[in-house]
């Protein structure tokens, strides 16, 4: 099959085609490795686990963001067009800059906040399967960037926290072990937060882990409204 890859060498952007002998069961990632090992070792891409859990290899395949490692070539039309993710700065070929992405994740305080935890003498916190189920799906985010790459709000405003960071914010707000969501709510209701979302739902459509970031944003909006009402009346 023909692979048409959008490349960038640090200065120039250009298209390059490679012919890859594919066979049943082969993934797009395996084809990228085939190209690197046999045809052109200057091709750069990120990959690690090749089992859809590390989040390294999200690229645009025939127009849609996907994990290269879980995309079977047999499901794709010839030629297979591979491009770097949109809404990220391209560093080289298929490699994009994730610095801002991870900085935003950090901004939402993605960790348990409670003041009765002692580092040196931890205790078992009780969490029922029902309580676990409230946030578990949102803890599955692999931070691959697919959601951000299709987000119309992220496309137009660079400081928007974006769907992945908001998923993380919701995941911790919904965790029964977290005791103080106030700071997180302040951040996500700021001008860079949930109100920027266009509700286009594109993120939920492309998430390889089927997390539905758009739903997390809706749930956070509800929390933000309650929080601002409480603040108004100084509850």
């Amino acid at each position, binding site marked *: 099959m023909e692979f048409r890859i959008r490349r960038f*060498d640090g200065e120039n952007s250009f298209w390059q085609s490679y012919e890859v002998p594919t066979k049943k069961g082969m993934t797009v990632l395996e084809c990228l490795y085939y190209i690197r090992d046999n045809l*052109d070792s*200057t091709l750069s891409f*990120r990959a*690690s686990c090749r089992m859809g859990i590390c*989040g390294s290899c999200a690229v645009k395949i025939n127009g849609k963001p996907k994990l290269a490692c879980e995309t079977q070539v047999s499901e794709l039309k010839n030629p297979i067009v591979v491009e770097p993710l949109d809404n990220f700065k391209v560093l080289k070929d298929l490699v994009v800059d*994730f610095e801002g992405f991870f900085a935003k994740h950090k901004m939402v305080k993605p960790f348990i906040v409670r003041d009765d935890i002692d580092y040196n003498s931890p205790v078992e916190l009780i969490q029922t399967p029902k309580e*676990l189920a409230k946030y578990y799906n949102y803890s599955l985010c692999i931070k691959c960037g697919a959601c951000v790459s299709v987000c119309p709000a992220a496309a137009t405003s660079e400081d928007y926290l974006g769907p992945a960071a908001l998923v993380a914010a919701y995941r911790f707000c919904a965790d029964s072990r977290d005791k103080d969501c106030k700071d997180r709510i302040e951040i996500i209701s700021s001008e860079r937060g949930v109100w920027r979302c266009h509700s286009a739902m594109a993120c939920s459509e492309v998430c390889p882990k089927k997390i539905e970031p758009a739903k997390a944003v809706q749930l956070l909006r509800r929390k933000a409204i309650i929080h601002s009402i409480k603040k108004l009346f100084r509850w």
Partner: protein
Amino acid sequence: MKQEYDVVVVGAGLAGMRAAISAAQKSKDLSIAIIAKTYPIRCHSVCAEGGTAAVLRDDDSYDLHAWDTIKGSDFLADQDAVEFFVRECPKEILRLDNWGCPWSRLKDGRIAQRAFGGHSVNRTVFAADRTGFHEVHTLYEKMVSYDNVEIFPEHFLTNLFIEDNKVKGVATINLKNGELVAFESKAVILATGGAGRLYGFTTYSHQVTGDGIAIAYRNGLPLKDMEFFQFHPTGLVPSGILMTEACRGEGGYLINKEGERFMKRYAPEKMEIAPRDIVSRAMWREIIEGRGFESEFGPYIALDLTHLGEEKINERLPLIRDAAKKFVGIDPVEEPIPVRPVAHYTMGGIHTNIKTETPVAGLYAAGECACVSIHGANRLGSNSTIECLVFGNVAGNMAAEYALRNGRMKITSEEIAIEEKRIYDSILGKSGDENPYQIKKELNETMDKNVWIFRTESELKDAVAKIKELKERYKDVEINDTRKGFNTDLLSTMEIGYMLDLAEVVAIAALKRTESRGAHYRLDYPKRDDVNWLKHSMAYYTPDGPRFEYIPVTITKWQPVERKY
């Protein structure tokens, strides 16, 4: 360019991040850099699936966990290290609970535990079948809450700076711009993971190329017990993707072509949840003797979960179901999964003592790159993620204490210039006729064929000769990509160089050990030989290949006995 920190952690998987947290917790005044060749959450630890062992309930005891681990190790584990280790495990599980890890729960909300190979009781704590993934994300998210930890993602380790047997920092390439960055520091922790990509059929992520182990080795540190490589029984055919031991812990069967649960002939009591070395050997024997299934991707054994039911599979093994569907088009609810044994874990590594200290002052190693040793000749499932947490914590503490007591030693601009010249002139700028990826392919084929589950003198000798040939040819490789920014061609070529050094150590260590113990099985020496071989191998670098010494195993209260399951 030079950066200055008190503690530098290399590697941002479970052990590295746990170490960084521990050092940061020790003192707010310490500055800590954590360096990794990927982003932290892209590390191989995310691939750990089944769980993490710890004594939590009254039906279990430290002595029992220790005994299971020591018996599993085929008595090569150091028993003082194991006794310390088992006592630290529960605290780490609870810490992760307190930090947000979504552990799977019992109905009453307490942390659940499942059965695992070689453990006498249900001891394995888990988060569905994504345990490593959740542990990694929990640690990462905890780590970013510390202001004194700075993350340097996509920095590739190229060397250590050591003077008068004291560490003074590390050299890295910042992948983004290709510049050399030296980190000058009081203490260094290596937590760079195993070396599994020496093999072609492997569960390991592409990035696990043994960089830290090889760099330590080249700098004169001894590598311990490198002949012991674990083969996990159930790698998905053909990709090698891990099908967790929890599949069997939850009740799955291994079935041969004749429809037989053949483990009854190899481990009648434990059956499918005997330790990994025993199950892998049994499966390989079934395959050799013609009782495997045939496929276009070679022989396989059926991992049958169909009797577990859809509900249990969805709750306990969702990743397995998803992966089997996506990668081989099989729904384990309906059909068995095709599997065969697969290279999975590096029991050996950088020699450390029980406190994670290496022979170089200020230099510590933890996690899979280190060999303490608690796993000996065969690691039990769910003892590795917890090892990363326990010894990551120890390393972080030790390094922090060392940094509080000692000053930084200067890395001179000449030293940095020498490293720059080595990389950009001698490696990147060199012309040659060899394709590094062809060398890697041949190395993988050699390891898969000659340094596999059943080993013989003649095959190991062939492997050593082939690796030496590949090392010669490697001197003549050419890197096609000459640009500096995100040069993955340079990165991969350097990784292949590391792998060749380590493969040579593994093959020669295996050739020298004329007995069968744990994962190291010699068809020509099929018995364990405690008289001559109850000892650790120590490989030291020389330009002509490794030189070996041996050190005794620490026995506290469990004398070696015959291993039956």
